[in-house]
């Protein structure tokens, strides 16, 4: 099956099941709303912690969304058919990841400036927030997929998934939050953004190899 067809198929499945991809988005918004309530509405306090909050919330929302990535295909045997067929499992992996990013990460990116504004982040820092989340979420989804694929044969794996994936999320979180932080203070955020871009290129090119291998192992 052609790559574009595969992505289209995933997107139309998601169109039929809207709650599935809207939940992580709602989670993201709700977690952010909790903080002004907990910390009090002082603009200075909120603006100081906003970059970290937005990034941690986006990271956790992505982590929550990961669980469903291969679940359906693993349970109904689609994955086995893919592994047994002539088609490359790598293409399937890429299609899955691209559609997952479009469905779960892109909405977060789109919503983030609104929430950033709500946390009194300077308007000049909002483009950097969006850009850092675009680059960072690529790494988050692609690296997270390795963890999902490795644990796909295990029941009740969500805590194990977090344990496996979160250590690898730390560098992304550090550079992402620091990019927004630096931009909020009025400096150039190019340094951390370049590092985020480098991490994104690395994970987008290398992680699918590990994902495909792990999927094959989980099928056995």
């Amino acid at each position: 099956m052609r790559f574009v067809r595969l992505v289209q198929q995933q997107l139309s499945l998601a169109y039929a099941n809207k709650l599935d991809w809207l939940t992580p988005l709602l989670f993201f918004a709700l977690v952010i709303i909790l903080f002004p309530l907990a910390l009090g509405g002082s603009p200075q306090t909120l603006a100081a912690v906003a970059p970290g909050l937005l990034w941690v919330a986006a990271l956790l929302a992505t982590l929550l969304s990961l669980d469903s990535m291969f679940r359906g295909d693993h349970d109904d045997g689609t994955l086995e058919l893919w592994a047994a067929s002539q088609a490359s499992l790598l293409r399937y992996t890429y299609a899955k990841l691209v559609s997952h990013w479009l469905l779960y990460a892109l909405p977060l990116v789109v919503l983030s400036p609104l929430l950033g504004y709500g946390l009194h982040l300077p308007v000049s820092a909002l483009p950097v927030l969006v850009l850092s989340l675009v680059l960072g979420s690529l790494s988050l989804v692609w690296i997270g997929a390795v963890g999902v694929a490795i644990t796909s044969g295990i029941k009740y794996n969500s805590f194990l998934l977090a344990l496996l994936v979160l250590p690898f999320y730390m560098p992304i979180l550090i550079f992402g939050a620091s990019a927004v932080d630096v931009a909020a203070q009025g400096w150039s955020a190019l340094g951390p953004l370049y590092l985020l871009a480098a991490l994104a290129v690395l994970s987008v090119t290398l992680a699918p190899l590990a994902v495909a291998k792990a999927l094959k192992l989980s099928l056995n």
Partner: protein
Amino acid sequence: MHPVLKWFYQWAVPHFVYPRIQTGLPWVALLASSLLVIGLVWGLVFAPADYQQGDAFRIIYVHVPAAWLSMLVYMAMTMMAISVLVWRIQVAELALIASAPIGAAFTLMALFTGAIWGKPMWGAWWVWDARLTSELILLFIYLGIFALYHAIEDKRQAAKAASLMTLVGVVNIPIIHYSVIWWNTLHQPPSLSKLDTPSIHPDMLWPLLITLLAFKLMYLWMLMLRLRTELLLRYPQSAWVQAIVQAMVQAQIQPTKDKSKDNAR
């Protein structure tokens, strides 16, 4: 086949590995413990005090070997992971799983001694410095590999998943190693990486090199102990394990028989 090559290949065969561990174990244990005692006594008692840090620097003789081993064990596990995924060697699977908790223990030891060292030198038990953070990440990676292996019931599949996870986690090792060079951090740069002109005096260097070697042998020692158990647990049905267990049971029964005789008398 050349006998040396044959000897080398036999390391992949469980029933050749077990007796080799049995014969090697006392020697490794003796060498490791005596080097450890020599290195620690020399370092902690006889080495000169540092002109800046005084006697507090002496924790280097535990901290540096532990930190070094935390990375070395991971590199060893990476080799084992490649052997598992490429050549499907079962002994390597067991050695990988036997190594993970040892590596985690060394990492924890490095973090703990670092905290003890950091309190008088930096004024804080913990700082979010690049070296410390990446070492903490390493601890979680070790624990993740261990948890993953135990979460999967089919142990061969579990070992393959753990091997893949090990290979993914290896990206963290260069980050730990170069963190003190890439970022301008609080943690001091390495004292030993420049082999020709080490930035440490020979009187302090020698005990450090001895404890380094002792810690490496300690890893080997613990690995042999754990691997021995893993081998017995993995192949309970095979003839050689049954023979070993028989011998163990015999050895257990024999003394109690003698005792009962004594009582009868």
